[in-house]
């Protein structure tokens, strides 16, 4: 057993932490959140240059990482700084799908992703699919060398910025069957694809995507017809590692801010951190933070295990992160008092990042049920 980071990962962590500490302060970030695109092209380019995206891909894919612990290191730092740029969507989900299942032409796009020059989005969830990954009602019908897509996709993060949207659609099978789901690479601006964009509460942007007779060449399909669910699950597993690590990083910031504030805020003539009632609450947060750290290690370390074992660890980790995340976010605000309720204060954004993680790819309860199901098998 060895719980140390490799030298390369340690370096990546240090570089990233230093860069974000210097460049990504609360004011800068809040201005990014308020901007029309909801992200900074400059910071995206600089982070790409630092290797943040390359670290999320394997060497064969053109990167220099791609393992669970690479993803965890990167996203922990992004989470620590409350970064809102769509690394999850463009790289882990979009780029990852192309790298793992794309043909040569599609895989060639991965180089642009790694270089920071291309954005992607995954349009999988639908207005009534909630967290159910196999429930795909959007249809794809092939005839005469063309595939035509029809349907609605919900809360597609980064859709407006994306040069290509990866759309999942059903070519065969029943509404909630895994078999029969395909993925298609749809260039932005393709006729019949309309976006209704909006800001997300915790930063970044998403869109409702309508697909009305979107006609694509057959070559837009990623992988074999009806066989996308396997690779989709792989990428969503990686995304769950990323989300867990991001929440962990944000929790580290939340607890650091809280600890500092307890030491400096004075009421009744002394630092509020001298009240034992608050000291014990802080101690509980620190205990749970270590639990969260270990849970992320468990998930990252099993990302490349066989699917049932991997998914059991991931479900367990997301459940724990969901519980601890809520506790840390709520308690950090409470222990601060009013100041933490203000937009200007760093914790406000950090708390939102932590809690809103619980709304992507399954919430705390959803992962609990999944853990139970996978444990019974």
């Amino acid at each position, binding site marked *: 057993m060895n719980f140390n980071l490799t030298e390369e990962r340690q370096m990546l962590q240090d570089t990233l932490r230093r860069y974000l500490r210097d460049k990504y302060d609360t004011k800068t970030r809040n201005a990014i959140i308020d901007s029309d695109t909801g992200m900074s092209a400059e910071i995206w380019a600089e982070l790409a240059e630092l290797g943040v995206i390359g670290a999320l891909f394997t060497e064969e894919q053109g990167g220099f990482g791609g393992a669970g612990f690479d993803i965890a290191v990167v996203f922990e730092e992004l989470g620590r700084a409350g970064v809102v740029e769509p690394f999850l969507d463009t790289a882990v989900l979009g780029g990852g799908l192309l790298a793992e299942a794309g043909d040569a032409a599609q895989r060639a796009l991965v180089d642009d992703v790694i270089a920071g020059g291309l954005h992607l989005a995954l349009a999988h*969830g639908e*207005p*009534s*699919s*909630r*967290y*159910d990954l196999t*429930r795909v009602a959007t249809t794809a019908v092939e005839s005469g060398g063309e595939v035509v897509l029809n349907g609605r996709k*919900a*809360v597609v993060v980064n859709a407006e910025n994306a040069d290509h949207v990866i759309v999942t659609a059903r070519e065969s099978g029943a509404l*909630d069957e895994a078999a029969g789901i395909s993925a298609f690479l749809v260039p932005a601006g393709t006729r019949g694809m309309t976006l*209704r964009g*909006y*800001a*997300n*509460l*915790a930063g970044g942007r*998403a869109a*409702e995507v309508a697909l009305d007779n979107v006609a694509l060449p057959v070559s837009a399909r990623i992988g074999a017809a009806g066989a996308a669910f396997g690779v989709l699950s792989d990428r969503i597993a990686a995304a769950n590692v990323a989300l867990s690590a991001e929440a962990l990083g944000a929790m580290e910031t939340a607890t650091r801010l809280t600890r500092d504030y307890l030491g400096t805020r*004075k*009421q*009744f*003539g002394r630092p509020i951190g001298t*009240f034992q*009632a*608050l000291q014990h609450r802080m101690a509980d947060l620190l205990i749970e933070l270590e639990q969260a750290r270990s849970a992320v290690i468990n998930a990252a370390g099993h990302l490349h295990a066989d699917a049932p074992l991997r998914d059991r660890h991931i479900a367990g980790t997301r459940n724990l992160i969901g519980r601890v995340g*809520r506790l840390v976010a*709520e308690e950090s*605000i*409470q222990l601060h*008092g*009013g100041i*933490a*309720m*203000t*937009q*200007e204060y760093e914790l*406000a*954004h950090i*708390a*939102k990042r932590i*809690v*809103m993680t*619980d*709304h*992507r790819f399954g*919430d*705390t*309860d959803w992962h*609990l*049920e999944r853990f139970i199901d996978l444990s019974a098998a």
Partner: protein
Amino acid sequence: MDLSYSPEEQSFRDEVRAFLAEKLPREMSDVIRAGGELGKARQEEWHAILNEKGWLAPNWPRKFGGAEWNAVQRHIFEEEAAAAHAPRIVPFGLSMLAPVLQKFGSQAQCDYYLPRILNGEHWWCQGYSEPGAGSDLASLKTRAVREGDHYVVNGQKTWTTLGQHANWIFCLVRTDTEVKQQEGISFLLIDMDTPGVEVRPIILLDGTHEVNEVWFTDVKVPVENLVGEENKGWTYAKYLLTHERTNIAGVGFSQAGLSAVKRAARAENHNGKPLMQNPHFAARVAQVEIDLMAMSTTNLRIVSAAAAGAAPGVESSMLKVKGTIIRQEINDLARRAAGPYAMPFASEGIEGDNDPVGPDYAAATAPQYFNNRKLSIFGGSNEIQRGIISKVMMGGGR
């Protein structure tokens, strides 16, 4: 012991229900149902509707123009109003300042201010907290120095809820720096149009402008705006806080919130079935509902004891803690129920000029979840309440 409502109480409930059905404008209840807040004009319109019926000031004595309802009536009104998605009543003038004036103010102050609270001419805000004086309110520094027939006020208040709508502010100010902190505080009424008063917005984490900083620079306040005696403000403030806490349990809000959660969970699909049929979610909802049923009775027990003359003491602290925990838990359930559609930030969508993204019940859930973290912070934080409870119950005194 008898848990049933008397025939008079039943007919009172019918009367309230009929009134709300007839008089509560649909545009208002739609906004409230969707988790929005009314703007100033609509809020004033609602106050005017209640005032016309004589129901704007349920707890005031009749001689001042109040309804003088008993505890059960107030409870019934609260329940029905919340169920009908009626706007809340802005409490600062009506249920915070007014009881203080009625008990400690001069006849002239009652005659002048109380009617203006009722008719909406004065919108009051509460100027207690300061950057350095939150839980430790008695350490407040805003200074009022007597100069002839007026005070000159300098300092800063913060967290002033809806100060941007208000034209009057009741303030705790320091009038004596030589004595024990609590003994040098006075209760002052300040016209916010006076030169030297400046209101600056504070944006909360859900993007709303709900609170403000209020700055005072050489503000001249006539001495007749002092309530009661100079340096006795702390006593009045404590009296006010007990009134601030009487509705603190928020039973009506919780009941309405829980119904909204159930409505959402019946509409949400979870693996092919309504979310409400999911055992985990159903268990969470049931647990909160069970807590709420008990707390509702605790609330009635305490409020009726108070009506019978017992001063609400440590029990109101208990209600504050339990009530806010339950409300916050319901906000959490609402957020969960919304699923991925809790993510969009529909700041513009709420007032109705924009279609919400996703189902109508989803848009406000996450903002409300974050906004209502305030419930356990203000009005005496839950830690301060626990401190009071343990001091009273374990220290042997009241």
